[in-house]
């Protein structure tokens, strides 16, 4: 499964657990519009670190947190695994 698909799948799993109604996950969707709160993103980042072996937001000290789904996925795709 590609990094993109794994991220989407993790988001969907957490949405079920947190009872969040996800809108369609297009690249331009802002993270705010996903309905996730900071805890939801914290869970997502932790699970992706276990799944993909990377946490792009901790590796780089000056990494700014992404604003959209597309930015979020690129943050993972751009880190050499």
């Amino acid at each position, binding site marked *: 499964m590609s990094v993109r698909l794994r991220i989407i799948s993790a988001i969907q799993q957490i949405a079920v657990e947190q009872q969040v109604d996800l809108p369609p996950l297009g690249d331009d969707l802002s993270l705010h519009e996903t309905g996730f709160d900071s805890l939801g993103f914290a869970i997502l980042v*932790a699970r992706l670190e276990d799944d993909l072996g990377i946490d792009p937001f901790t590796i780089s000290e000056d990494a700014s*947190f992404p604003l959209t789904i597309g930015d979020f996925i690129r943050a993972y795709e751009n880190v050499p695994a």
Partner: protein
Amino acid sequence: MSPREIFALRDYLDPHLKGRSLSDARQVVQLTEFAGETCLEGRLAGLSGRSVLLAVADQLVSALAMLEIDGVARRMLLCPPDLAAEHISTLVEDAEIDAVVTDRPAQWAASGIDLVVSAQTPMRAASRSRTERATEWLMLTSGTSGVPKIVGHTLEGLSGAIVADGPARGASPVWATFYDIRRYGGLQIFLRAIIGGGSMVLSEPAEPVADYVARLREKSVTHISGTPSHWRKLLMSGSASDFSPRYVRLSGEIADQAVLDGLSRAFPAASIGHAYASTEAGVGFAVNDGLEGFPADMIGVTRDGVEMKVEDGSLRIRSKRTAHAYVGRQAAALTDAQGFVDTGDMVEQRGDRYHFVGRRGGIINIGGLKAHPEEIEAVINRHAEVRMSRARSRRSPITGAIVVADVILADGDGADRSDVIRDEILAECRASLASHKVPAVIRFVASLDVTAAGKLARHDA
């Protein structure tokens, strides 16, 4: 107080009470005969009025030395077997130690301590010695980092709960504990055995659980204590069958409903109690109704000389069983101005019971919201296929920290069902806990570290 009013441990070695013994995996000592024997090469008189460091590796020899030294020395500092060598010089200075009793005298020859007395078995005959004074008992706290604190007790305070409980029911109790008797929880059991006219079976470091249980069965142990972690380990080992104690006691960690229920299933004939005690606060109380937590009406009243209150969420205890002071040059005050010891154990009232939720210092901060690892573990442990769990903090770039959990399954691996079990655990956590307390990640592990004091290791706490 005239010396005749002071009781020391030796005064409980009734020569008319036959058949009492103290044993480990290697030897058995007849307590009835020990009243006329010495493990100190007959050099007890030299310890009179001194501050004695009891640095004996062997637990059984250590027990015998306590029986001799109590009532003779000014004070006696009990060293647990895992005491780090680097802390000894500080402790010697703080406790004004001027004699050491040890089974390794060569190691102490160059220590600079005035008097080194060798402790060993076999014993030799000695005249029965007399109780001269109330010896101060010094114990060490079991914290994980830095020099342990020295906590001062008297035998009267240490045995307060034992006297209040009265003699153990049934004939000639045989006590055992998973604890080392140089720690508060273990010492309580040793004192119960000695003061209550019983016998005792000691644990051995690194002895496999199955071997220990075989000894417990062989010696017909009737009363036994340990931490919930000790008990979970025993339940996991599968060696509990054929062992049928009359009394099973838990202390030292939070006894959750899952471990209480597990023990009632494993020992249907036993009375199961969980006690609240700490090195500083002494024995607070014991609960014997099979339920976790304790009745709320125990707060605010004085029972058996113990008074409890809850302030800023933590349990505070005032009684004659608490330690009287921290000992040492920079020792902090042990009690507040009203004489209450702040246990640092956080409680929460739900209905007519208080429940322990965790240690004050162990709180996980998830983006400003607090969680105690223990309250999360209590929910995870309710799952029928979980034997033991540890919730811990994991750093998060979003919330600073999140909760994750390591879980041991009862049947060993359960790998084929692990996804189902994970979902069931998470569903239970979501139903019972605020969302920030629900573990973000659950990992199944084969084992969890337990400290030398028998408690679940919390490295990140």
